[in-house]
């Protein structure tokens, strides 16, 4: 039996950064401080933050759902089409039929059904989810164009409607949707870490063989997973629509890389079996803040994209290094060498 080394300094700082999310929160804080220094006018005011809080929720909610999907060792690339579909359903029902709460329910139901079908395709046809959902991205997107006839819709009249106030209004200057996103984050955290469904996902992602052998109904849980992902994407779509009061045919497509980046910057492993919900929350914030921060800092035109890439790499590396320097091979080597000589 091994010993806990009494002499090993039980470093309280190191222990603190073992708590879920503290490391990535620090990275985010550093980024904000950096931008406060380089772009004080924008980042010392409150407006920029309000704008983030209004626009981050949709991708953040999707990223939270995707985190669960990744935990189970799967992928979902079809969410942009689900976002657009839900947005369309909501808009058209609101505009043409004057539905409000029912329109919300219909939109969510649409996303849920789409997610359910994604789940069926993945489990019943046995197609790896990455390619299956890529195909569904096209399929749903195409279907939507056919149904909507490609039109875009605007529902400016919704501003002030109770449904808009509840989901995308302002509490003072604070955009309400941000609290919804935080609510979803708490819920998803609870599901993953405290609910039997989350436990199933953890084991499914860890090893399908083990999951089967311990009696987890793999197929059913996967279908539930994709269904939930559909529901969350649809909710994101509705929030987006309520904030912009418009529907575009490509709505959601721009989120594809962003959401994927948010999940993995948050520190969730692509190999499944573990997931960091708090990480995803901050990952979404980091992804959202980078470009605005760079632009406000006056980074010259074409350099922005270069720096976005750089900040991605630095953030991920710092997140790992703060949690445990040995996770970064370069630092590990350095430490080993310093120790030796």
């Amino acid at each position, binding site marked *: 039996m091994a010993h806990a080394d009494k002499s090993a300094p039980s470093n309280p700082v190191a222990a603190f950064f073992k708590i879920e999310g503290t490391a990535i929160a620090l990275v985010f804080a550093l980024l904000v401080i950096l931008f406060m220094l380089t772009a004080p006018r924008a980042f010392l005011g409150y407006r920029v933050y309000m*704008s983030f809080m209004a626009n981050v929720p949709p991708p953040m909610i999707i990223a939270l759902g995707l985190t669960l999907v990744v935990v189970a060792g799967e992928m979902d690339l079809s969410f942009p089409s689900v976002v657009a579909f839900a947005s369309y359903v909501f808009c058209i029902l609101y505009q043409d039929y004057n539905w409000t709460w029912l329109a919300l329910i219909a939109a969510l139901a649409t996303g849920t059904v789409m997610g359910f079908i994604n789940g069926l395709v993945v489990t019943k046809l046995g197609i790896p989810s990455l390619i299956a959902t890529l195909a569904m991205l096209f399929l749903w997107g195409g279907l939507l164009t056919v149904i909507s006839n490609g039109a875009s819709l605007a529902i400016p009249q919704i501003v002030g409607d109770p449904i808009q106030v509840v989901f995308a209004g302002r509490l003072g200057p604070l955009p309400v949707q941000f609290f919804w996103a935080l609510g979803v984050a708490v819920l998803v955290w609870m599901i993953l870490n405290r609910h039997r469904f989350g436990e199933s996902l953890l084991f499914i992602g860890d090893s399908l063989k083990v999951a089967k052998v311990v009696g987890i109904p793999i197929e059913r849980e996967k279908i539930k997973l994709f269904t939930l992902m559909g529901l969350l994407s649809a909710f994101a779509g509705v929030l987006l629509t309520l904030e912009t009061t418009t529907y575009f045919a490509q709505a959601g497509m721009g989120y594809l890389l962003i959401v994927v980046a948010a999940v993995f910057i948050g520190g969730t492993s692509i190999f499944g079996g573990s997931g960091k919900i708090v990480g995803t929350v901050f990952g979404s914030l980091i992804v959202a803040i980078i470009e605005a921060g760079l632009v406000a800092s006056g980074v010259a035109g074409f350099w922005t994209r270069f720096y976005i890439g750089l900040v991605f790499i630095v953030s991920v590396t710092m997140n790992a290094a703060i949690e445990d320097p040995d996770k970064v091979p370069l630092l590990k080597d350095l430490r080993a060498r310093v120790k030796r000589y």
Partner: protein
Amino acid sequence: QEAADSGLTMYFQMGGNPGDTATLARELGAREAARILKVNLIEQHSGWDPQKMLVQASEALAAAPDAIAIMGHPGVAAMTPFLNKAKEEGVVVVLTDTNLPGTGLNYFGADSYGAGRNLADLAVKDGKLKAGDKVLVYGAFIEGAAGAITAKGTVDYLKENGLGVETLQWTQEAVLDPSLSVPVLVAYLESNPDTKAILVPGHGGVTAVLAKVLKDAGKKPGEVTAAGFDISSASIQGVKDGYITAVLDQQPYLQGFYGVLSAVLQKKYGLGNTQMFTSTGSMTKDNVELLEALVKTGIR
């Protein structure tokens, strides 16, 4: 009467993705003309990728149709081999959206460069901008990208008139989901409170969120001049609310319609070398009500 029974087969490059805002009206126009003229219309979509436009042009040619409508984004040099081959085989080639100067093909679209200048001109006049005022141009500055020529026109005009021009390249993500550009532009305005105008040369979606940007940045209607392209329901609201000064329109419906029509006419009667700028008009406070109805149908 004879032309109406054309029975031609025509490949038509529509631009982005099926049904998206900058593509839809062109599709509808082309389909309408194809219906009337009994043309077998085959639609291609490139996602505005010049590379893909080239590939699709060669695929279209391989199918030996009567006519092909292309776009000029890849540039004259890249398009020349294709044009030569098409000529050899007697396939009629029509251009829409972006011109290939010097090729003498039938062209239907905006005078992109001129439209860009036009946008700047409108903004300067309506927004009462003076020399030295700081203007942000948010658009495409990468050659070959959709909107790059327009952006150049805008920037050139502003510079010629002594305004302070700042350019900001939009991202692929923001082009797809314009709401993503809101925090970026808000951050810019916060950092540069002396900005007098934001111009968006060439993107309906981004134009549509301009009102939101100004609201979020705490600007009052008219405080910062905003102008852009492509009339949409959202930009109509922006104009009504006074946030958006002017929206230029390229009337892509006409590009689709005339594109098909001219191909038929050239094939049947050899009537070629037509060039038409589909619009120089714009939407402002004065005509916004009138345009609103048409937009809902997807025609404008």
